[in-house]
């Protein structure tokens, strides 16, 4: 019996339940593919968008997904730097969320383009005064950094798999393991590289969501032109990111029977972190809305009223309940800060944060300064299908990842258990062969 078989085993076996889920999700993705082709052929006229609500579901999803991408890298980097030992089983599943979800963030911008065939104009004819180009730059760097940050700690685990498998898997892992033998010098280099990346990735992650917020804040449109949008978006991003990690953890724990690794302690600690972020989110939201209301500037108050008591009131108050009331109630009480309790709070936060993005994007557009005739934006079946497709494709890719790589970092757990500093080298190869 080898150690941590519970982690390695699900990587190498595919059960019937996995196949059923994969098939169902693939069907949703295929449907979204059809919707996408429909949109490419007929143009953005197939959406519910119009003048002046030029941005809707796609841009909401863009901001939401980029926000969730702060899950992994940022959380795992911060916990790594402060040497929070309990982080060890959760860093990988967090980092995978980051890398995968970034593709859907960028993808939603491409879905939103009237001429996706000309997307490369952004690189061929860049205009650096445009916040959209800041986005392109920042997200590209973030994607590169977080991919590297996911890959580096994977190398020793890939080597374990290489030595335990045969056939295509052996060749596949052999190539990815980059000749890892577990020599002390390799450990030393790896630790250094991970340490550097952990620090490097934090300012990059902060810049990403700051710049996303600036897409809105740099315009002079009412309730977009706000100086606190940068930090407000970063806080919201970390908030929704932690919620996404907890949700993923509960599912992975249940499906792959990892109860021994993901204990109530993890959910309690992350729950407290989520509670802190909920309070921060409330603080920022309160500051943002109070100043707008108190100032009563005509164009601003029009948007404010549309959100608080007008056509968007249902979204706004649902957002408040989902982002603050529900999670606060569940997380502030240690009795409900259980696995089930944090899951409820996390799902609530994810729904709430999506609504927050929606109530930032749409109401400002629906109430422009110029008194042009408006309309009520209702997303079309194409937009809903593509949104469902994004969530399904993300889940599918995440599932796929768990069948290729261990979702819990084996060597980091062992390094912790044996309390041997990895630089002096726990011989994983010998371990794996014994």
């Amino acid at each position, binding site marked *: 019996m080898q150690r941590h078989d519970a982690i390695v085993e699900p990587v190498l076996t595919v059960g019937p339940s996995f196949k059923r889920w994969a098939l169902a999700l693939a069907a949703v993705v295929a449907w979204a593919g059809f919707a996408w082709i429909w949109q490419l052929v007929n*143009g*953005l006229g197939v959406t519910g968008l119009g003048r002046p609500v030029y941005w809707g579901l796609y841009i909401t999803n863009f901001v939401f997904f980029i926000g969730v991408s702060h899950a992994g890298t940022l959380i795992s980097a911060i916990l790594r730097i402060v040497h929070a030992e309990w982080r060890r089983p959760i860093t990988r599943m967090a980092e995978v969320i980051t890398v995968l979800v970034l593709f859907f963030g960028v993808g939603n911008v491409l879905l939103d383009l009237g001429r996706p065939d000309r997307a490369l104009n952004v690189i061929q004819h860049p205009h650096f005064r445009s916040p*959209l180009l800041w986005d392109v730059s920042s997200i590209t760097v973030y994607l590169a950094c977080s991919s590297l940050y996911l890959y580096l700690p994977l190398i020793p685990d890939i080597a374990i798999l290489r030595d335990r498998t045969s056939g295509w898997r052996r060749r596949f892992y052999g190539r990815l393991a980059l000749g890892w033998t577990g020599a002390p010098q390799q450990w030393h280099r790896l630790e250094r590289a991970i340490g550097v990346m952990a620090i490097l990735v934090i300012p990059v992650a902060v810049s990403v969501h700051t710049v996303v917020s600036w897409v809105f804040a740099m315009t002079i449109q009412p309730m977009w032109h706000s100086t606190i949008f940068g930090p407000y978006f970063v806080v919201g991003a970390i908030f929704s990111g932690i919620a996404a990690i907890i949700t993923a953890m509960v599912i992975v724990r249940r499906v792959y029977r990892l109860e021994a690794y993901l204990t109530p302690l993890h959910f309690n600690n992350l729950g407290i972190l989520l509670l802190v972020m909920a309070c921060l989110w409330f603080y920022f939201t309160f500051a943002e809305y109070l100043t707008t209301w108190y100032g009563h500037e005509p164009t601003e108050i029009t948007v404010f009223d549309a959100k608080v008591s007008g056509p968007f009131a249902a979204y706004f108050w649902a957002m408040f309940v989902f982002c603050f009331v529900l999670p606060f109630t569940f997380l502030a009480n240690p009795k409900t800060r259980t696995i089930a309790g944090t899951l409820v709070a996390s799902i609530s936060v994810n729904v709430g944060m999506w609504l927050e993005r929606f109530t930032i994007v749409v109401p400002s557009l629906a109430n422009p300064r110029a008194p042009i005739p408006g309309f009520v934006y209702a997303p079309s079946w194409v937009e809903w299908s593509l949104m469902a497709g994004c969530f399904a494709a993300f889940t599918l890719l995440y599932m796929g990842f768990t069948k290729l790589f261990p979702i819990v970092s084996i060597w980091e757990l062992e390094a912790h258990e044996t309390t041997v500093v990895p630089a002096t080298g726990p011989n994983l190869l010998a371990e794996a062969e014994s």
Partner: protein
Amino acid sequence: MPRWGLVIDLDRCTGCEACVVACKHENNVPFSTPESAAEGRLMTWIQLVPAEVPGRTQPTPLPLMCQHCERPPCTDVCPTWATYLNPEGLVAQIYPRCIGCRYCTNACPYAVKVFDWTTPDWPDSMAPMMNPDVSLRPKGVVEKCTFCHHRLMQAREWAKTQGRELAPEDYVPACVQTCPAEAMTFGDLDDPHGSVAPLAESPRAFRWMADLGTRPKVVYLREGE
């Protein structure tokens, strides 16, 4: 170099919307139906909006088109230089460059930029009436009032063939040419002896949303006095 500007006298404007029709014709702006307009899909480069203007307590119909700002909020945000302020002060729009992100439409406080949601559907009977000097926009790009810059290019060519400088009366946008009430005046804002500059200095003159610092080159003259 001239700095093209437009003055609209609200005291003369009757709200007949001849300018709207002229613009649609001149610039091959696609048709809209009442149904499509109700869905936010109205295609128009100029329209009358009920605006709050100085000197009036009630909203007044204001002919609204691209204001060709000196400091346009739309050009800064374009990621590909598809919209920019050209040396003559026109806010230009390059259709083949535009990626259709609609950032400029959202950054414009006047909401005058429109997007081609679909490929325009032209009735066959309209084919011979199309203006050959104005390119048709494909679906997926942003378009707006150009101050009929194709007329400027023609006028410049014409003046050149005659071996003379471009005269102010050589270049007039279609809306100005059509206005039956002669409420619109077009010309060089920097020419103190021209027709536009003195009007733009009139005590009745105001620039809409001037407090935003956009410095529009469309100047309105309020009613009264």
